[in-house]
């Protein structure tokens, strides 16, 4: 059995214990599921960014695709980071890539997460304005907010 499986099992048994002791309060989800949910959310975010990028690069995406992409980015940016990064979903749980530092420096992480919304709003406005250079600039600014967390709080894909 590899480490990841052991860790996942350990995390699962710990959470089972927690369930037992707290009577399994409603809404408490399985950490592995939460990691999967997060990956779906990030995929949605990435899909949105990718659509805008395709439009900026002039590689087959229409302005409408870009607008839909920005909408997806906005929707994720408006989410509460606590629901996306619940405690107990750090690296080791399923194939989580979130460093434990994310929770240790939660206020920093939260601040960086909330920087995404105004950036995404500007991106959305730029797409509605239709100026490609401005869209490009806003896309860069938005991805900067993504990168600020990935740089410190995400383990590298191995």
């Amino acid at each position: 059995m590899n480490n990841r499986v052991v860790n996942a099992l350990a995390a699962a048994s710990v959470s089972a214990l927690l369930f037992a002791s707290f009577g399994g309060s409603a809404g408490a989800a399985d950490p592995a599921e939460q990691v999967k949910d997060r990956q779906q959310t990030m995929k949605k975010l990435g899909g949105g960014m990718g659509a805008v990028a395709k439009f900026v690069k002039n590689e087959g995406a229409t302005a409408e695709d870009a607008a839909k992409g920005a909408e997806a980015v906005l929707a994720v940016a408006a989410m509460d980071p606590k629901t996306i990064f619940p405690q107990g979903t750090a690296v080791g749980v399923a194939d989580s890539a979130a460093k434990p530092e994310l929770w240790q420096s939660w206020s920093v992480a939260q601040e960086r997460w909330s920087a995404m919304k105004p950036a995404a709003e500007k991106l959305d406005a730029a797409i509605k304005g239709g100026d490609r250079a401005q869209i490009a600039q806003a896309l860069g600014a938005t991805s900067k907010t993504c990168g600020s967390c990935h740089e410190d709080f995400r383990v590298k894909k191995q």
Partner: protein
Amino acid sequence: MRCLARIARTLPFALAAGGAWAGGAGAGGAWAAEPDPVARGAYVFQAAGCLGCHTDEKAGGLPLAGGRALKTPFGTFFTPNITPDPANGIGRWTDADFVRAFREGRRPDGAALFPAFPYASYTRMTDRDLLDLKAYLFAQPAAPVANKPHDLTPPFSWRFLVPAWQWMYLTPGPVPDDPARPAAWNRGRYLVDALGHCGECHTPRSLLGGLDADRYLGGNPDGPDGDKVPNITAHPKGVGGWSDGDVGLLLEAGLTPEGDVVGGAMGEVIRNSTSKLTAEDRAAIVAYLKTVPPLE
């Protein structure tokens, strides 16, 4: 500051425009015309990515005062202070000392520098870029911060062995432009091989810590902080399937073709260095990378 104004003029994603290259003079690029050495040096400083390694950003260290731990398979290096502080930094270095450190990997007292300072790449820098870089560094505030000793595993801690390493792995530059290639290609090669020192992470190393020239930019399973560093050759397993715009957007904004935004060490390189290059220079990097022999 004039240099900042110039850098701010960088056009976003001008790569889409393709032939935007201003026809700069080979390795010198469009910056050859800038008269102020400090302004030119500021750009060289960014393209060479000096800030990241020489600042202990996470611990709130002063800019360029060093102290950042670089974990490598050979031990942990602590980067030195490169501010003009005369006691702790490089304030007493002459022009010749400075050029020799980059060209030959030697300290002013003649002792060999450990190649964690990537002089095997920086040796390709032109004298002019080196002296402009020195002018810029000497225009920065001095930080009275003492250097930390490295924590290396023998035999890699034995400085007297470094000249042997240099004999094997250091080919002193600069490297003349290839007249058969366009100016943009030559500039791109200079940005990738000399200033950007991309191969230091993207090329695997031998057991002795030299770059494996046969696997140039082919990816490194054992990069900084134990991370895998991807293949950036034109192979499908590298960036062969990427459009020019894809590579340009990654260098400018960190965005991958899938819409992911890179983090880790490359995130930092993008933040401190490649995002601050001119669009022409990023296009030159793309032009050069496309010609790097594909490796699986």
